[in-house]
């Protein structure tokens, strides 16, 4: 059905604004959840004072960061110093444009997918945007003109470039099984409970490991290792510019969680029942959010459990274990696909 251009643009606008709003509030509350859960793991309480159960804490934090003095060190290369956090946050938010949250829905007589836009090479788009994310961090370190920032960003750069390879290779297996780079078709290929996590368990574990490194999270948070480097690449950043780096780290976490859900856990698949609005819209969205939330919890859980790797161990793990195993997995998967 061909819908008028105006309606099309209006629906696209609504979806974009809604996605961004949900993403922004989600990022704020993932941080709160992280503080509460890690506190519980360490036998503490965590933030409870602002609002009931500390639910207004993200709001208070945002105001604090907005109102803090914005310091620009005198030795920075000013243009790039300002550009770096902007690059980081833009790229982190860009990849949600192609992530489908649910099936195609029919609403008020119009048909639209629960997704900002669907492209044939969605997975390639996400990988491409993620690979550009390095620039924000590398430029931040370089333009700060401080040795800790530079060391942190050199570490981050080589870490992200190395693990991107393992991340991409891990996704090749499911793509071969689905026969498409279109995220919607990858989900459709897993219909009926044939989730790719079972045949591609190796790829799943590699993806998960690489995702921790891509998002610079513990146990791979070498770029910001506070004990050695101050705070790594964002040492010289303060107030809202610092918050933007923080924001993009959590946005990246959400993106890799969504991709893991779509590629390995069957997307929005799950038991559905009831009337159309429930079984076609609400329940798929619920299953999708539940699966993504599981991955987010995993990120927090690991943070509360594992110590930090040493830098040479990190590189050895990436190049000597993950990449060869991922290559072997691609080989075996393609043999199986060719055999069928």
């Amino acid at each position, binding site marked *: 059905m061909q819908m008028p251009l105006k309606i099309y643009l209006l629906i696209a606008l609504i979806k974009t604004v809604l996605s961004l709003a949900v993403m922004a509030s989600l990022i704020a509350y993932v941080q709160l959840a992280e503080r509460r859960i890690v506190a519980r793991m360490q036998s503490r309480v965590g933030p409870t004072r602002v609002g009931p159960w500390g639910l207004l804490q993200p709001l208070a934090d945002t105001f604090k960061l907005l109102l803090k003095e914005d310091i620009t060190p005198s030795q920075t290369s000013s243009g790039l110093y300002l550009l770096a956090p902007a690059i980081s946050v833009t790229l982190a938010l860009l990849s949600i444009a192609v992530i489908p949250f649910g099936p195609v829905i029919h609403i008020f007589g119009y048909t639209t997918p629960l997704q900002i836009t669907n492209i044939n090479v969605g997975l390639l788009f996400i990988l*491409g945007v993620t*690979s*550009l994310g390095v*620039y924000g961090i590398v430029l931040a370190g370089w333009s700060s003109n401080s040795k800790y920032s530079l060391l942190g960003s*050199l570490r981050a750069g080589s870490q992200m470039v190395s693990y991107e390879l393992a991340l991409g290779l891990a996704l090749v297996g499911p793509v071969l099984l689905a026969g498409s780079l279109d995220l919607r078709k990858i989900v459709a290929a897993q219909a009926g409970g044939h989730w790719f996590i079972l045949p591609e368990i190796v790829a799943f574990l590699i993806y998960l490991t690489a995702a921790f490194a891509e998002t610079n999270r513990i146990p791979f948070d070498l770029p910001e290792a506070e004990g050695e480097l101050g705070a790594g690449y964002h040492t010289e950043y303060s107030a809202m510019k610092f918050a933007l780096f923080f924001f993009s780290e959590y946005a990246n976490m959400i993106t890799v969680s969504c991709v893991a859900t779509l590629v390995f856990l069957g997307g929005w698949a799950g038991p559905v029942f009831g009337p159309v609005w429930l079984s076609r819209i609400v329940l798929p969205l619920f299953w999708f959010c539940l699966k993504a939330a599981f991955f987010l919890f995993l990120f927090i859980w690991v943070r509360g459990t594992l110590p930090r790797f040493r830098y040479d161990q*990190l*590189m050895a793990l990436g190049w000597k274990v993950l990449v060869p195993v991922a290559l072997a997995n691609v080989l075996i998967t393609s043999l199986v696909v060719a055999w069928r």
Partner: protein
Amino acid sequence: MLNLQLILFLIFGALAVAGGINMLRSRSPIYGALSLILVMGALAVLYLLLGAEFIAFVQILVYAGAIMVLFVFVIMLLNAQPLPPHERARFARRLGLPAIFILLGILAAAFALRYSRARLAAGSPMFHVRSIGQALFHQGLLPFEATSVLFLVGIAGAVLLAARPETQSSGTDTPAVKAADRSGL
């Protein structure tokens, strides 16, 4: 809809040219590299306009996301600062630059005359990933395998060239990080 493609072409074409000019103008290598990334991003959009979606995203992934990261990385590693302009290139500047731009003028005139009526058709053909893959592994299989060997040689060569001589790295002040770092490059 007729003009939408033209408008997009003009915007991103202008962006690409601006990036190229900025690359030529800036003395510092880091700004040159960043301008080139801008050019690559603009070109990726033009590739999308030309129906080459796979190439467009590979352009972002490989060119902007991997090759240029290496450039930026090396610039940072070597702390490349702006250098004074060439001393011995007066001949090239005086004669070469005008010559190139004259050549460009001739080429542009030739293109404009020769292909003035060659319009890119509407309802453009999309080169899908599937058909590119099939072409790549049927008619392009031999070049593909040859390129993979070239790649392997390239990797070995890069590691060998960037490696420090063994005698230097035996000191205690060179941590194991360096060896791992090198494989990262």
